[in-house]
């Protein structure tokens, strides 16, 4: 190691964003690293370091390239533009304004690369076609938006000046308010998890198991450290004060660092801490680790068969948890049913593939009493759970941990579990130095959670009229090596297994099964996308058996207000599936007629089909409490501050919650500032998951706004309907001659600088489920229906999605642009799940073997927003984040069935799988 050569540092000069720069760096260093680390221009994002994602796209001598595949030495004497160079004099360029106006930036992690690719495209094609735009953006992956808003923004920027929508005071709800955090996501200023750390921070890199199941012994680490200059420490399980964590108190089964054994490929074994150069130069094989490899338990069948010893002593049958919903007499009803459709359905590991890999830093902060606290800065969907869990791992009180969420470059459930945070926390706490780390893309994919693979055996029965009479669902979910959110999936799925239909007899049983696979965690829909694939396939079969149109069959069975769900919960309002289906019906019928009129003889190998699917989804946690508290303060300087503990992963809560609060308070959105997520400065808003923030935190924000309004009115004894205005530091209440004025700058302020504060809390009402799963698990449900038109190449088994039309009941669209953005983005993930996404540990842990949809894979989408108001919701709103992706995959597979006659029972339906089925059908 000591004699390892290192590259020479040399001077490199180039023109950067119109100004000459000189740096002294290693010439073979990646340009992306030089921009970020040496020049401090962190607007250029690193998503994969392999040219696969395009997040680091810059324009070099008038051509877009990935900065991660360019050597610094190659840039000498050339002209480079990065995202920081797009905006002139602090004003967003027209292209950036168009992104803002169209909601083209959600999490923002791909946005700098997307902007640079778009700028390059517009330079080449000033008046581009949509296809030229798609060609130009083809090298940048986006996981949030589904691309359509981006393409629209680029076309709009080419078309002329862009105007940003404005909301009238008091009318923010329902307005297309541009993201309030949008500008910083468009000019490169936004600070993501890898963008900031103390200058003196040490670097941490975990060494991970190359085996799915093994025992290991560590050799003489002290000697190894001594022979490796730059390595400060190698952390082991012995360094972790409490070496177990997990989501629920009942099962804390996951170690921070493996203790003599590992249970999945990618599990952290030891953590190297030292200089960045030293920790990255170490080859894992150099470490004194003696492996004893064991036969892994892979897949649900092996897990249930308990081949070898069980994963955990406390679960001798490898079953983490069972879920159960029983209603009526299923066997009897199925016996009497006129038609029964049944099948076994299988889905795969799916990777979240957010563009920002996990990163962060931890550092000790001295307290006045002489002790220390720990600050953890990282990307997370759940700062308060992180705080409590990090404290538990360090065996200190939660109030000694401060979690400061970074801007988050996408989550989708994948950042609901701790990842890099406990490693950084343990290292920093032990070494008393700031410690930072950044996951590589392969590491991020190897060690973080996945969507649970499912194996589902399902029967659906209906009577002669087409009324569903019974559902029998048996579903097993591969939860991998550790519990994570496995019990959430196992408990949520049975409630949803009969779909958004009124069915009198339901038996839905689930198991979450331990295996040596990747950890099954939270991912947009918590198992419901999997079960929806099963029930929507079978509902289509029953419609065919009855000779009914698939939409008409669903319309007949759609659950309505006044009817009971599988858990016996009678819906009282906001059950908008019927409205969704009626909205889709004309276009659906036209598409089916058009496709069925096509002559296969003239189509060569191409077959068209149109398929539909529906969904329902309980908003918020299943049964268990999920309160949120929001605070809003009025400052002496005339600004309003929302203390917002809900983190915005890109879905837009930082905009929506302000819109709600602003209207409740009666002041315009543009007067608001925010403090977001910081556990020292906000109240606990719960996690950003389960599509709950608009509904739950939205209510808290509404109440907080109302409370502050009442307090302000009381200060001047004004009536409840009095109008509020802020003119500099003057608060004016009322109209005309009756206006009363209050000089805020003259009032006493609290330690935050607020002269008046409103606080609101909300916890959606639920009741526990009994032994048969009967009760009220959610306060409200989202509903939706989507149809997709596909073109299947029957000789190759390839599928192109040509068009998707979606209708979702969101209660009330607080921000229609964001609702549409969630829906199109969800559809893109549904397309991926249907056609291409399958994670195999150690084989597809990169973004060229693991495929997610590109701009060319997401077709035009028509979105219908249905607003059947939820009485409990803020201004009638409920959630849409997860519902958006749930029906897409079965809509596509039902369209494939319509096109080819092949029933798809395994996802993803890759070209080889579909072709095999087509050949099998031809033989039969």
């Amino acid at each position, binding site marked *: 190691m*000591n*004699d*390892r*050569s*290192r*590259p*020479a540092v*040399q001077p490199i000069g180039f023109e950067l964003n119109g100004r000459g720069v000189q740096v002294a760096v*290693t010439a*073979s260093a*990646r340009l992306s690293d030089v921009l970020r680390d040496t020049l401090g221009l962190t607007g250029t994002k690193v998503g994969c*370091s*392999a*040219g*696969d994602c*395009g997040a680091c*796209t810059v324009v070099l001598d008038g*051509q877009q*390239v*990935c900065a*991660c*595949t*360019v*050597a610094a*030495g*190659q840039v*000498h004497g050339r002209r480079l533009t990065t995202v920081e160079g797009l905006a002139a004099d602090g004003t967003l360029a027209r292209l950036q304004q168009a992104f803002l106006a169209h909601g083209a930036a959600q999490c923002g992690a791909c946005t700098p690369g997307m902007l640079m*690719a778009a700028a390059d495209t517009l330079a080449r094609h000033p008046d581009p076609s949509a296809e030229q735009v*798609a060609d*130009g953006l*083809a*090298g*940048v*992956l986006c996981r949030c938006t589904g691309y359509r808003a981006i393409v629209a923004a680029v076309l709009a920027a080419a078309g002329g000046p862009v105007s940003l929508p404005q909301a009238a005071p008091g009318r923010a709800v329902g307005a297309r308010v541009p993201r309030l955090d949008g500008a910083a996501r468009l000019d490169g200023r936004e600070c993501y998890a890898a963008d900031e750390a103390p200058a003196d921070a040490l670097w941490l890199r975990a060494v991970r198991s190359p085996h799915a199941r093994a025992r290991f012994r560590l050799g003489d680490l002290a000697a190894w450290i001594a022979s490796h200059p730059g390595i400060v420490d190698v952390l082991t399980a012995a360094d972790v004060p409490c070496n177990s964590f997990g989501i629920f108190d009942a099962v804390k089964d996951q170690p921070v660092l493996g203790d003599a054994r590992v249970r999945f490929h990618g599990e952290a074994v030891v953590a190297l801490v030292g200089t960045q150069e030293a920790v*990255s*130069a170490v080859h894992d094989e150099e470490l004194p680790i003696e492996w004893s490899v064991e036969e892994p338990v892979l897949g649900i069948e092996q897990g249930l068969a308990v081949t070898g010893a069980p994963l955990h002593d406390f679960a001798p049958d490898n079953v983490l948890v069972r879920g159960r919903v029983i209603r009526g007499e299923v066997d009897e009803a199925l016996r009497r049913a006129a038609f029964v459709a049944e099948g076994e359905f299988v889905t795969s590991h799916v990777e979240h593939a957010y563009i920002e890999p996990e990163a962060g830093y931890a550092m000790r902060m001295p307290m006045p009493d002489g002790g220390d606290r720990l600050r953890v800065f990282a990307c997370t969907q759940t700062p308060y759970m992180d705080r409590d869990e990090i404290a538990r791992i360090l065996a200190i009180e939660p109030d000694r941990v401060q979690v400061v969420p970074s801007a988050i470059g996408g989550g989708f459930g994948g950042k609901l579990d701790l990842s890099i945070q406990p490693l950084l926390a343990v290292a920093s706490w032990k070494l008393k130095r700031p410690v930072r780390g950044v996951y*590589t*893309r*392969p590491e991020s994919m190897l060690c973080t959670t996945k969507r649970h693979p499912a194996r589902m055996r399902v029967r659906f029965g209906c009577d002669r009229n087409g009324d569903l009479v019974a559902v029998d669902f048996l579903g097993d979910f591969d939860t991998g090596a550790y519990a994570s959110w496995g019990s959430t999936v196992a408990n949520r799925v049975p409630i949803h297994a009969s779909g958004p239909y009124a069915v009198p007899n339901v038996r839905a049983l689930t198991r979450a099964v331990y295996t040596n696979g990747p950890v099954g965690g939270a991912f947009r829909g918590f198992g419901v996308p999997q079960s929806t694939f099963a029930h929507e396939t079978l509902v289509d079969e029953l419609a065919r058996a009855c000779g009914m149109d698939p939409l008409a069959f669903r319309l007949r069975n759609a659950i309505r207000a006044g009817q009971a769900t599988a858990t016996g919960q009678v819906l009282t309002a906001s059950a908008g599936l019927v409205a969704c289906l009626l909205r889709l019906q004309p276009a659906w019928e036209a598409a089916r007629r058009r496709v069925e009129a096509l002559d296969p003889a003239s189509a060569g190998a191409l077959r068209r089909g149109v398929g539909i699917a529906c969904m329902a989804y309980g908003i918020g946690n299943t049964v268990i409490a999920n309160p949120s508290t929001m605070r809003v303060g009025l400052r002496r300087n005339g600004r309003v501050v929302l203390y917002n503990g809900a983190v915005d992963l890109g879905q837009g809560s930082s905009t929506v919650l302000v819109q709600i609060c602003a209207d409740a308070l009666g002041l315009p959105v543009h007067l608001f500032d925010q403090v977001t997520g910081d556990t020292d400065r906000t109240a606990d808003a719960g996690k950003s998951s389960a599509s709950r923030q608009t509904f739950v935190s939205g209510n808290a924000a509404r109440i907080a706004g109302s409370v502050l309004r009442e307090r302000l009115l009381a200060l001047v004894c004004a009536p409840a309907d009095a109008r509020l205005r802020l003119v500099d530091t003057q608060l004016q209440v009322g109209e005309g001659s009756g206006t009363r004025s209050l000089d805020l700058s003259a009032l006493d302020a609290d330690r935050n600088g607020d002269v008046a504060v409103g606080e609101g809390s909300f916890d959606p009402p639920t009741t526990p489920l009994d032994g048969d799963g009967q009760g009220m698990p959610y306060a409200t449900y989202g509903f939706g229906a989507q149809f997709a038109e596909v073109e299947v190449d029957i*000789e*190759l*088994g390839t599928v192109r999605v040509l068009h998707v039309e979606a209708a979702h009941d969101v209660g009330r669209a607080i921000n229609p642009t964001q609702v549409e953005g969630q829906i199109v983005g969800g559809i893109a993930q549904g397309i991926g799940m249907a*056609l*291409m996404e*399958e994670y*195999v540990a150690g*084989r*597809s842990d990169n973004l*060229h*073997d693991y495929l997610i*949809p*590109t*701009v*060319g*894979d997401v077709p035009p989408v028509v979105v219908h927003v249905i607003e059947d108001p939820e009485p409990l919701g803020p201004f009638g709103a409920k959630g849409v984040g997860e519902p958006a992706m749930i029906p897409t995959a079965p809509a596509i597979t039902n369209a494939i069935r319509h096109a080819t006659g092949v029933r798809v029972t395994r996802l993803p339906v*890759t*070209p*080889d799988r579909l072709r*095999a089925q087509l*050949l099998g059908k031809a033989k039969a």
Partner: protein
Amino acid sequence: MSSLPYVQPAILADALSALSQQRLVPLAGGTDFYPARVGQPVADGILDLSRLTDLCGLSTSVSGWRLGALTTWSALRRAPLPAALCALQRVAAEVGGVQIQNAGTVGGNLCNASPAADGVPALLALDAQVELQSVRGTRTMPLGQFILGNRRTARAPDELLTAVLLPHSGAHTRSTFHKLGARRYLVISVLMVAARLDLDDSGRVAAAAVAVGACSEVAQRLPLLEQRLAGRRLDAALREVPHAHDLAALTPRSDVRASAAYRRDAALTLVRRALGALCDE
């Protein structure tokens, strides 16, 4: 601690001289070099080729086309090439995304020798030769002899691949390239097929070339099929000529992208389609 060199010559002679004196990894577009080193520092001495402008671009002479090894896919995509080289331009439009096309080079694609290299089947079908230079001299060889296996080539450590040479085709030559992947853009090929037909004055096939990629360690021509195609009339029946046994020499593998059986099956479909497309032109 010794220092790893980073050599950035401005002329070819200096590059060859540097290669003759020390072990250096030639770096062109970087689109294969850096992805092979994710999370690792560069631990190689580098010969940065980016200043060797002599190796960029296309030229034509009596002996044929010469593609400088550093010609990027974008340059190829935009170049005014004859219909005979259509296969190459279709490759250029389908390799990676625009960023890869702007940086990636023809020479790099060949020297990286991935079984899924999009450029290989097209250049095989176009009867490409490669030119290798070193201080010891210059040699040329058919592309089929240059690529020895998965990531293995006949390039000696002191040699640079300097050009790809394509013979002039007749006035009635056409070629095409079909790529199959599981998504629209930015996809590593499940398989790809390139085909070239030289037509005689009567419109019959004088000579044919068909190559299949990602179905064996190195992309392969299909000589038996090519022989059967020769002499045939250019009509719709041409696409019925290929049969499964023409692909017998292929050795496709199952991987995360597709099963072996599928590759064999789809290869036949793509070969037929490529020939059909050439008939339709």
